[in-house]
């Protein structure tokens, strides 16, 4: 599979000082899982209308990026992994992140999602959507909840989709780094009978135990609507890792309505996982669908 970093580096977007510490923690956990380094990336945004947009990237980084330098320098050093810090000049945050991913080819990218609409300077939905659409790597969008100081329990809702392995990777890495338990949850609905649901979580739990024999893995089946069931179950856990559900290769928004509603209905830290296999614009996704292969 193309898109895996050569040595499992994890890139983390450093944009909002309030989110940095937590995002770096998540990136470190995942990087340790891969045995790679953490790359902190801050995008120096110079839109076309900026009078400073005509300078070369080197000049901008040297002379007109003091804020970004400060932001990047203030980001904490995660313990136990090697750290690289990098400034990228681009016309927008999302373009900078996607080009940085293409250039350094990390195993995963971690970005923050401030779902508070009152904050206009933070990463917004448009940025997240663009990155999910175009970044050719596994992407983790983290909604910072109440500071998950100690993580004792990770909830991994699964329904068997392309994003499940990606979500599993992060859930396992976070659980391992924090000595936490994992609960694999699925929801039995009218379309998914209980036997089928049982098979899905048993298989998922078995996969995790195979990867990490030391982890405590529990399984849970809920009934009712998917969103409500997951929101109800979330209270007992510290971190939720969700797959970015999406209907078919032609739907524009990569984060489906289910994760969005779960994010709105919970206070926990929520991580939405998007597999590298669905990256690329509409054109490449159509091409992939036609040729019947992944990327």
């Amino acid at each position: 599979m193309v898109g895996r970093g050569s040595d499992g580096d994890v890139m983390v977007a450093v944009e909002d000082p309030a989110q940095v510490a937590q995002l770096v923690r998540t990136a470190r956990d995942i990087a340790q899982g891969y045995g790679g380094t953490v790359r902190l990336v801050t995008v120096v945004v110079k839109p076309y209308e900026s009078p400073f947009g005509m300078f070369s990237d080197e000049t901008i980084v040297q002379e007109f990026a003091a804020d970004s330098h400060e932001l990047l320098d203030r980001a904490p050093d995660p313990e136990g992994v090697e750290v690289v810090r990098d400034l990228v000049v681009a016309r927008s945050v999302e373009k900078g992140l996607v080009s940085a991913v293409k250039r350094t080819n990390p195993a995963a990218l971690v970005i923050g999602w401030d779902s508070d609409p009152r904050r206009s300077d933070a990463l917004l939905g448009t940025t997240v959507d663009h990155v999910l659409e175009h970044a050719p790597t596994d992407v983790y969008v983290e909604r910072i909840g109440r500071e998950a100081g100690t993580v004792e329990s990770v909830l991994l809702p699964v329904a068997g989709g392309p994003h499940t392995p990606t979500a599993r990777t992060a859930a396992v890495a976070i659980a391992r780094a924090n000595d936490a338990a994992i609960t694999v949850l699925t929801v039995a609905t009218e379309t998914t009978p209980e036997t089928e649901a049982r098979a899905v979580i048993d298989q998922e739990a078995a996969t995790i135990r195979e990867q990490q024999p030391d982890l405590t893995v529990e399984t849970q089946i809920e009934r009712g609507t998917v969103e409500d069931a997951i929101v109800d179950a979330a209270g007992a856990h510290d971190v939720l890792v969700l797959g970015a559900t999406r209907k078919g290769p032609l739907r524009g928004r990569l984060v489906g309505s289910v994760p969005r509603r779960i994010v709105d209905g919970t206070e926990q830290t929520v991580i939405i996982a998007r597999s590298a296999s669905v990256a690329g614009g509409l054109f490449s996704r159509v091409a992939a669908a036609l040729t019947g292969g992944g990327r």
Partner: protein
Amino acid sequence: MTAWGLVLLATVIAIFTAWTLGANSNSPPFAPAIGARAISTMQAAFLIGLLAGAGALLQGGSISETIGTGLFQGVAFTPLAATAGLLTAGAFMAVGIFAGYPVPAAFATTGAMVGVGLSLGGTPNMETLRGIGLFWVLVPPVSGGLAFGTASLLRRDDISDTLSIPLLAAIVAAVLANIELGVIPGPPGVAQNSLARFVAGTIATPVVGTLDVGIVLVTLLFAIGGFVFIRRRTQQSVDRGVKTFLVGLGSVVAFSSGGSQVGLATGPLEYLYGVELGLPGIVLLAIGGAGILAGAWMGAPRLLQATSREYAQLGARRSIAALVPGFLIAQAAIALGIPISFNNIIISGVIGGGLAAGSAGVSRRKILVTLSFWVITLVTSVAVGYGVNTGLGLVF
């Protein structure tokens, strides 16, 4: 849809366009002053709104008339045509903002109006269009050159700051004495007058050759006044003098930017308001000026916060160098009635000021990309304006 409905629609689009211009084009002049901590962001945003709105009201007429009635002969810009022009220009600006491409409003509006005029079967005023084209081509080198000269002057060690900065203030003040404003009463048949000409006219000074001695005297008085004022400030403290000059320069540039930008929103409505409705020009400019004021108050703080740090890193001297051409070129464009992209002047000024400090470190690729977008905007806006107006004509 009745004609009145169209008039209303066109007016709403024009206000929206003015709002967009106020939010985006009129903010830069105060960013250097904020970067130098001479004024707070909110104070600056408040001032920008008032100054750009006042500039629109007092100086916006000439460019507005060029766009509205000066590009073609023998064409009646009906409400439908005005709507077509505004819709086209607005669509280009919206694409620019949302897709993040450089789309100068002056190019989009002028192009759209040329397209609409052609589709109405008008005869283009080639002389006017040639003048506009020449001015546009000259803006980058002239703005860059002026900024380069200014920055070089300010960088010289053998000329102290207590002389060089007051000299610049003298030049700015001398130009101010001669800018034409709608509020200054002139002789019969003259709509706008400059302070210098007004004073000269009331004292009836002699004329030597083609020069009115009175105008020269008033200009000199202004220059001396500007020089003395800033010289005293710089002698007390260079830093304070620079800050004062940055605020003053920002103010006149903000005023000029309003006067040079409002016509891009109101121009397409000129024929409608002036000829068909028979309203005085000030009505339309007031509508545009209000839009600019609202846009500046709402949009400027965010933009100023984003750019003031960069100007702080550029330094006060290079910031001054970037603003001086902004003032001079905008006033020249207003005097000649030529629509301009204010941002293009500032960009060229920043680059020119950078060159004075050695290599500017510009990216040839980025400049080429931006230039291409400017040209594409111009060419496609003509085509789209033509198409939209023809299409609307078939429907209504």
